[in-house]
């Protein structure tokens, strides 16, 4: 799980252009939206694309998103249980 969390941190830094940020700067348990990383709705779309492209996961139920994208740790948990690749 730690490897997956690190991989997700690096992927998120890359796709969201979080320049000057390193994986160590991101608390896996911290909120991604609002406080914490302060991501916005466009970033949420980018994360959905990331899950599909890198892990073959299609989010068919938008209501799930709020829980899945709560933190890096929650994304990692969902990816580990639902990844297709």
């Amino acid at each position, binding site marked *: 799980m730690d490897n997956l969390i690190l991989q997700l941190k690096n992927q998120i830094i890359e*796709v*969201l*252009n*979080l*320049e*000057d940020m390193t994986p160590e700067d991101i608390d896996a348990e911290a909120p991604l939206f609002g406080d914490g990383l*302060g991501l916005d709705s*466009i*970033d949420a*779309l*980018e994360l959905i*694309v990331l899950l*599909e*492209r890198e892990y073959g996961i299609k989010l068919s139920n938008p209501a799930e998103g709020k829980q899945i994208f709560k933190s890096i740790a929650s994304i990692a948990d969902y990816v580990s249980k639902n990844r297709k690749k």
Partner: protein
Amino acid sequence: MKTIAEISITPNRTILNGDTISTANIAGLYREFVGDYPKFFKMDSLCKLGFIGSELLLKGINAEEKENAAIILFNRNGSLITDRNYQKTITDDNYFPSPALFVYTLANIVTGEIAIRNKIYGESSFYVLNNQDMDLMNDIINNTYLTSSPTFILTGWVDFDDEHNYEAKLKLVTK
């Protein structure tokens, strides 16, 4: 029309009110003079260029003055570089379009980024012209005063072709 402040940004030199203040590129200018707005890194190149120009021009202008200001910008290339980058993400058969790129496939997004940062609620517009037609640009700026009374107008040319070819010639003007 009276010019309050003006700035010129090219890859080699940034001149503010006649003084060369830096030779850094756009990211270098951000680190040198701004540094507190992480959203900068998510912007496309055109927005970064316009944003940096506006940050340097608007330093010292208070929030009340900015609230009713107008933003009127011009360029030649529109958002072409981002349009091309976005197109690359949708050319494969099994493509994954980038939402973060797509939102910048309009040139006028730069006026919105500047307005959001500075809480500017006045008129904003963006014109794509064949060249820097000063007569036409001045007509458009002057016409703004026929329909509204902005405290000042942030206006000028902001054009990004590639990392070696970009130019912002922006100014703050009043009636």
